[in-house]
């Protein structure tokens, strides 16, 4: 479905206050977007710019941007009360690149506060509703449709793509925040290799894990956007250097001729796919395993070699991830002290106005949500002198183990290492379910659902991450591709994971899966 152009900027839906130049150029278009967005709450603000000013490789493409990526013409709230009024003076490098390539920025998308969450419930803009059902059962009145989560934290990005509001959307993925919502909403979601897309202008959650990701309905559109934004940026000190990018070229091209061939039937002869044993926990919905089996069978029929592999450190990744991500978050979010920008609350009785610690404490308590506070406290603890060795250092060790495990599995060398020794019988990519289940139900009273409820208990929100976190810790490219429906009729995604820098290879395999399934 072609998206309709949008012609005004306004905050949606709770805060409809217009900002400076919110002139309606073409009201019918904007009302289209609003109509599409109304039931799902995917957008937080809509652009007033006329579309397609530039010419370039993304000309004609409309793209929504997650609300934790800085834009100078739209607010950047990170779905937090702390930044509710915040407008950045600069564009993120990714946003600049999109515009330079001729893309039209539709608006900003809802997300979990600062990217923390898996269900898009932790947001001042309210929860995002998964649009999937709205498309298939349009004759059912909205009140009777099943309200399910779009996943998080890039829930608004996945939902806006699924609902046809835009051709593609940018999200961010720290531990699965692009792949999970992509899986729940039935769209394609790419978390590229760490350092491939610039983070300048992306509000940090955990710097060593944060990646800008791309969501769209097709792998080819994801690839198109990826090619435009995966550019070296000197303003990102963790960016992969042009040198390093060059080194990944042969890894990707080793298999490209086969997958890129237009001959039908497509042959996957020579492609080695590994299925990691550790990615089938007891919590995994059995109907998802059936879907994966069907995918593997088709890939096998097309000529791919299937083998089971083992990534033993997987069992520790969840603990390591939450220590590292929380520790970095506690550091990165320290800047939200209400001194230079952000929410400043009136000091409460008992507080001393001249005491800066009181000003900080009250503003941070009021401006940051429960989940964010929880992680800041966890991370602060992990970094204290007494806990540092047992938590932070230990987590870093596990992280090294996870990387080594992956290096033992892939047949492509890790170009980040001085002397990589990839196994000759290694695999090209790994394949596993993207999530342990289909989209969970949203709580009936969505506004009060922060912190969990019956339908989505707090702990399972973390448990889900076991499927996505290992690739994040290792900085590997991972792509979730929709492949069918679970027992409940809701979308299921599988993830293709490759060696660092094998983004193109991962997308090629994703495209093959897209065509075969």
């Amino acid at each position: 479905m072609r998206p309709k152009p949008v012609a005004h900027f306004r905050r949606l839906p709770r805060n409809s206050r217009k900002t400076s130049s919110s002139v309606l150029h073409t009201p019918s278009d904007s009302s289209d977007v609003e109509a599409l967005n109304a039931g799902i709450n995917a957008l937080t603000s809509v652009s007033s710019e006329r579309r397609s000013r530039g010419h370039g490789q993304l000309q004609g493409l409309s793209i929504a941007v997650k609300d934790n990526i800085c834009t100078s013409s739209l607010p950047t709230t990170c779905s937090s009360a702390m930044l509710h009024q915040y407008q950045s003076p600069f564009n993120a490098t990714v946003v600049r690149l999109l515009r330079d390539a001729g893309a039209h920025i539709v608006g900003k998308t809802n997300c979990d506060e600062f990217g923390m969450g898996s269900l898009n419930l932790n947001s001042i803009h309210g929860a995002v509703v998964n649009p999937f059902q709205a498309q298939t059962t349009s004759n059912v009145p909205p009140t009777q449709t099943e309200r399910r989560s779009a996943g998080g934290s890039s829930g608004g990005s996945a939902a806006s793509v699924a609902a046809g509001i835009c051709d593609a959307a940018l999200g961010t993925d720290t531990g699965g925040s692009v792949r999970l919502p992509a899986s729940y909403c039935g769209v394609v979601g790419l978390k590229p290799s760490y350092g491939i897309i610039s983070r300048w202008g992306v509000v940090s959650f955990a710097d060593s894990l944060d990646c800008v990701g791309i969501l769209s309905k097709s792998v080819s559109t994801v690839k198109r956007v990826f090619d435009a934004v995966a550019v070296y940026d000197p303003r990102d000190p963790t960016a992969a250097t042009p040198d390093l990018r060059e080194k990944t070229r042969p890894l990707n091209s080793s298999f490209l001729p086969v997958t890129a061939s237009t001959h039908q039937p497509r042959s996957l002869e020579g492609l080695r796919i590994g299925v990691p044993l550790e990615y089938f926990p007891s919590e995994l919905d059995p109907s998802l395993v059936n879907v994966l089996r069907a995918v593997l069978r088709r890939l096998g029929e097309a000529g791919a070699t299937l083998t089971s592999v083992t990534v033993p450190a997987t069992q520790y990744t969840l603990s390591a991830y939450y220590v590292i991500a929380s520790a970095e978050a506690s550091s990165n979010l320290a800047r939200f002290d209400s001194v230079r920008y952000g929410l400043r609350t009136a000091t409460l009785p008992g507080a001393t106005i001249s005491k800066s610690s009181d000003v900080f404490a009250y503003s941070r308590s009021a401006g940051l949500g429960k989940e964010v506070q929880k992680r800041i406290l966890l991370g602060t603890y992990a970094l204290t002198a007494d806990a540092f060795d047992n938590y932070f250092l230990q987590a870093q060790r596990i992280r090294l183990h996870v990387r080594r495990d992956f290096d033992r599995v892939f047949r492509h060398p890790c170009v980040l290492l001085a002397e990589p020794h990839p196994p000759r019988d290694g695999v090209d990519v790994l394949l596993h379910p993207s999530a342990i289940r289909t989209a969970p139900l949203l709580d009936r009273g969505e506004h009060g659902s922060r912190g969990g409820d019956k339908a989505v208990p707090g702990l399972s929100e973390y448990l889900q991450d076991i499927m996505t976190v290992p690739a994040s810790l290792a900085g590997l490219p991972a792509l979730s591709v929709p492949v069918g429906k679970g027992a409940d009729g809701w979308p299921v995604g599988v993830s293709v994971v490759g060696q660092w820098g094998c983004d193109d290879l991962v997308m090629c395999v994703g495209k093959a899966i897209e065509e075969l399934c």
Partner: protein
Amino acid sequence: MNLVRACPRRAQHQWKLRELWRINGLRGTHRQRERVEDRRWPGWEVVVGIEVHAQIKSRKKLFSGEWERSEARTTHTNDAPNTSVSCFDAALPGTLPTLNPKCVELAVRTALALNADVQRRSAFDRKHYFYPDLPSGYQITQRYAPLARGGYLRLSRDDFTVRITQLQLEQDTAKSTVHAGRRVSLIDLNRAGSGLMEIVSEPDMRSPEEAGDYVRTLQTLLRAVGSSDGSMELGSLRCDVNVSVNRYGQPPGTRCEIKNLNSIKFVMTAIASEVFRHIELLESGRTVTQETRGFDENKAETFKLRSKEDSPDYRYMPDPNLPPLLLSQEYIEHVRSSMPELPSETRVRLLSMGLSERDADVLMTIDAGREVGFDGEIGKGAIAMTQDLLGQLASRKETFSDNPVSVEHMGELIDMVQSGKVTGEFIGVSQYLWCPGTSGKTLLRHMISHRSLDYPSKLAKELGLIALSQDDSSLVKEWCLEAIKELPQQAEAVRKGNLPVLNRLVGKVMKLGRGRANAETVRTLLLELLREES
């Protein structure tokens, strides 16, 4: 040359875990010194160690990035508050640090001058605490893997040395002032993010006077290598002093740290006052408790800030944005070879050229602090010009008595070079080195060879060596545009962020303008032009 390399491998992840282990105090061994009885406190030995924070004399801040406009520059004291602040300095969400290589170079220079061991690999940590003058809630520092370790500084008196523990790079904070009348705190972010060198000494000093001598000697050294103005009055050099006392023959006592001393006199007074306080406690049978203290300048005594138990947990963490800093031996040698002469070396050389001790001293006094500009750019001072004169005479096989240049003419020439009225020469694209005064050399040669009796200012006009003034900016812009047009590939590379290529364009402009434009101006203008276009 690959001067400052980012780690190419899993940069952001590869912290050497070893480095993260808590280290057991930074201080090394206690050094035995010959017993020197101090009449002020007979029977007592005083032990002093000093941490010096010196602001690095770079045009730009430590991490604010090349792409920021003038906002990211290091400020001067007379700047209006909050006018030199980049998005990064204000800790706006979405900003990331970019290491300023000039700060690294100046710190390496300092480390070499201190005979320290420059580390091939150092790393950046975050030190956390909440304070209104710390915008990001953490300070980026190098506590666990500093830029340099070891080293020593020879003091002027008594011919003894103070050992240096380490030298590390770190960010300065903003400045907060309490406005008593309005009962508000005012924050000025101008200083936030400026580069500092923290230079930690071993506890090798044994009296307030030695401490004063150490700071003074260090100050002179920093100025000579051009890494810091070292001005305590202006706050570009600040001291934290550790003091302990013990009876002779006994192990060292409990130390107290006195924070933020901003003059050498205060350093000495604070130490003396602290020594008396310790002795009084110990003589009355009480103990000294380890604490951090401030210094009251009016009362000339120290006061308690916090005890060891109250000291904050800084939650050190390796900075996940900054890869380890890897320095090649080649780079370190390059810095060594391009270092300005240390004062002691200059003196020796002047004497070897036949100057009397008195003349050498006079020359050195005139020249002090004039040689090195921002970012370590080595200028031409009186000494260098005098050496040029001697050198040119020698190459013509003439003696000093044949010297045709009068004192007056020589004086005017030096003034012209130092005030930038005659221009320099662009001597290298890779290093972007600007060497003011090479036209001065040309002028001098002309004066000698033509035995000209004209004033240098008149000659300079005749020879077309006068630098362009501000008014000629349209001409400079024209050259810039021409350079961009002639080097389209390079221009495109710069637009895409490949900044080293900018030097090619600067070089082109200098060539077009026959060296009459100011390289720094050209650089800024080129960046602006390229940014406008993109």
